[in-house]
């Protein structure tokens, strides 16, 4: 049954019960129901005349009797329907017991009453008691109709809420949905609201109004709310819903008034995400005692919380995708570049980009110059850089057996905070990336990425070192030499004679150290069949020289000539092709002079004979560890064997060897051995 029919039925029932006509009109006296008659005795026009005679119904606030003409009484009751203006229930007409004759006389004597004389006998005549009962029943009727309207209003609101909630649930996942739309939907439901807004947390104790809807376009967006201050600042502290009424004189209202808002009632609800107040939902009304539905407000706050959470997750996901794409590009570039410095440039620049640091540097070992450490830097002064570089070097390259593969925060002497990320691969430290940071918190989200960057940097540098490192036949030549020594000592002696002459003669005729090194290798190999070593030799120069040695008819290359000359000199191979070569004569000349020198050496050896370990150490300025390594070299151990015997890493042995060679002023270990023996030292 519809609302109107229910009201009409109720009105009809009361008309019969009370025995009088009843009608409901609005403030303009327009009918809202049909006239209810107890008996069909009157024309419709009569009641219209009665209604028109009621003076100013909008002034009537309670159920009362009104005399439309003296003696003719009608009942009027206002009905609050929930709409902007009330309706008015009108009932009548009644005549009070004992007044009929007087009334009749009055009607006959007055023009406005003549019309009603004919109806006078049909109007109910009631006693004072009955009049009171009718008044009470009429009031009940108006209250009942009012209840019907209010129930209907609740149903309407509920339906609108349900419909809006369904709409929000459907839209909340759409990218076009936003908080302004949500607030607009809510404001439409609540007619008492003059404005509504949301402030989002900006910093720990500050919130900024980012969403605001009102009819005055007040410039509220962007205003800050500080914890503890004003109405809403209190809510940040208490973390509970609050509302205020009759606040028109409250001094806290001043900021609102300055922006053209004059609320008399306010509410504020904290919006919590993960137990923390991340936003504030607030609203205001110009009504002094506005009724805010706290349940609805809490539901809206929950929806906003869900929306904000979803938005944060969406943004975070989007950022992660973008960062993943950026990381992918960085890692791809780092593993594709062919130059170690470019790997380091990427590390330092991405470090700066990532943390927007004031400075960044990379300390690294230069492949070409192992005895040196280098620093690339941005934004750091050179004098401090030198100091910091040494400090970094001590911490990352001096300590043995220390696993420094994880990033750490480090406080510099000047008070700056840096994040140091070692560039490592398989526990080997290639360098350290250091980035100046403001605080630890800003670095924390990026630590996994920085860690990956350190590892990728390590892999790239390791690959580049391997690609760039000259391939060495040192080990295989050492094996062939040892084999020769054990199995054919005589030939071994001859080979060593030739090898001893290579450096001197080679330098004499201007050969490079690489050429001298190749000829030494070739001397050893020439004592073996080609098929024995050909698959084991990797140095290109040695391969080429040996190919010429076996297969070339013309001896043109100077290294080949020297090889033939030396082999000829020790009597291993006398090749007719070099018999008349001018280089042979040059060698013979040099060798004869060299013989004179050799004649002197024994005397020196006598002097130097018995040189003690301490003396050689002092003479060469070697450290204890370097002396130990040198002794092992003299015993014929390779780097790996030395590392095992001294319980240190291959890498450390290599470092010590670099230093030893530098201090001896020689370029390879064979020269080092020769030089130390020449000085008269032999290990015990």
């Amino acid at each position, binding site marked *: 049954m519809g609302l109107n029919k229910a009201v009409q039925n109720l009105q009809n029932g009361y008309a019969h019960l009370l025995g009088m006509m009843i009608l409901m009109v609005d403030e303009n006296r327009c009918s809202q129901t049909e006239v209810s008659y107890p008996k069909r005795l009157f024309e419709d026009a009569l009641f219209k005349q009665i209604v028109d005679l009621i003076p100013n119904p909008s002034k009537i606030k309670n159920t009362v009797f009104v005399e439309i003409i003296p003696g003719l009484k009608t009942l009027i009751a206002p009905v609050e329907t929930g709409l902007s203006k009330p309706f008015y229930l009108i009932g009548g007409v009644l005549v009070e017991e004992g007044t009929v004759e007087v009334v009749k006389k009055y009607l006959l004597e007055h023009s406005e009453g003549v019309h009603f004389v004919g109806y006078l006998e049909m109007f109910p005549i009631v006693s004072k008691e009955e009049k009171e009962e009718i008044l009470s029943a009429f009031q009940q009727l108006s209250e009942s109709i009012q209840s019907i309207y209010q129930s209907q209003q609740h149903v309407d609101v509920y339906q609108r809420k349900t419909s809006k909630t369904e709409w929000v649930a459907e839209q909340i996942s759409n990218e076009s949905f936003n908080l302004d739309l949500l607030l607009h939907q809510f404001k439409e439901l609540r007619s008492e609201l003059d404005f509504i807004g949301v402030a989002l947390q900006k910093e720990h104790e500050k919130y900024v109004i980012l969403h605001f809807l009102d009819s005055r376009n007040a410039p509220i967006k962007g205003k800050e709310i500080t914890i503890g201050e004003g109405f809403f600042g209190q809510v940040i502290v208490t973390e509970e819903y609050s509302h205020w009424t009759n606040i028109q004189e409250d001094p806290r209202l001043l900021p609102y008034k300055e922006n053209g808002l004059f609320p008399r009632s306010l509410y504020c609800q904290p919006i919590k995400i993960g137990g923390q107040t991340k936003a504030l939902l607030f609203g205001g009304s110009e009504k002094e005692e506005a009724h805010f539905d706290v349940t609805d407000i809490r539901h809206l706050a929950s929806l906003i919380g869900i929306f904000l959470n979803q938005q944060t997750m969406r943004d975070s996901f989007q*950022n992660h995708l*973008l*960062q993943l*794409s*950026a*990381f992918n*590009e*960085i890692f791809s*570039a780092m593993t594709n570049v062919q130059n170690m410095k*470019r790997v*380091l*440039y*990427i590390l*330092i*620049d*991405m470090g*700066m*980009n*990532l*943390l*927007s*640091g004031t400075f960044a*540097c*990379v300390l690294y*070992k*230069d492949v070409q*110059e*192992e*005895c*040196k*450490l*280098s*620093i*690339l*830097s*941005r*934004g*750091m002064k*050179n004098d401090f*850089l*030198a100091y910091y*570089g*040494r400090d970094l*070097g*001590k911490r990352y*390259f*001096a300590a043995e057996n220390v696993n420094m593969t994880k990033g750490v925060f480090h406080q510099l002497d000047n008070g700056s905070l840096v994040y140091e990320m070692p560039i490592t691969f398989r526990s080997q430290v290639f360098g350290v990336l250091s980035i100046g940071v403001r605080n630890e918190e800003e670095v924390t989200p*990026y630590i996994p*990425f920085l860690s990956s960057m350190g590892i990728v940097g390590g892999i790239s540098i390791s690959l580049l070192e391997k690609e760039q490192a000259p391939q060495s036949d040192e080990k295989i030549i050492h094996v062939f030499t040892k084999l020769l020594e054990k199995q054919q000592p005589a030939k071994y002696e001859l080979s060593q004679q030739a090898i001893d002459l290579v450096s001197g003669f080679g330098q004499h005729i201007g050969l490079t150290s690489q050429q001298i090194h190749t000829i030494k290798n070739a001397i050893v190999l020439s004592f073996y069949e080609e098929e024995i070593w050909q698959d084991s030799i990797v140095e290109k120069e040695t391969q080429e020289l040996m190919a010429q040695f076996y297969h070339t008819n013309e001896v043109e290359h100077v290294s080949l000539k020297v090889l033939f000359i030396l082999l000829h000199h020790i009597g291993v191979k006398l090749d007719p092709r070099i018999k008349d070569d001018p280089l042979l004569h040059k060698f013979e000349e040099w060798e004869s002079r060299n013989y004179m020198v050799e004649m002197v050496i024994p005397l020196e050896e006598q002097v130097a004979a018995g040189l003690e370990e301490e003396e050689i150490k002092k003479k060469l300025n070697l450290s204890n560890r370097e002396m130990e390594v040198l002794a092992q070299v003299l015993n014929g151990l390779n780097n790996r064997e030395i590392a095992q015997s001294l319980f240190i890493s291959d890498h450390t042995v290599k*470092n010590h060897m670099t*230093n030893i060679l530098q201090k001896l002023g020689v370029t390879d270990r064979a020269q080092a051995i020769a030089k130390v023996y020449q000085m008269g030292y032999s290990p015990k």
Partner: protein
Amino acid sequence: MLQLNPLKVECTLFFEENPYTFETVEGLASRLGRRTTELAQILEHLVTVSILEKIGDGEQAIYRYLQPDTFQFQREAIWD
């Protein structure tokens, strides 16, 4: 701005690969196939972190890569 957005990375890698490039925003936008508006913001950030240097102002401002400073010392000097 996202600390490591793909355009910032692309731009940085471009300058590292072409360290002697002198280019305007428009020239870079053309080279990288990007819009000048989105690129301008990135370039300004790279200037603030000293990866790029900006020469001049306005549309004709030229950007160039600043190679990191290099400093070298003997390893043994560290242990003294």
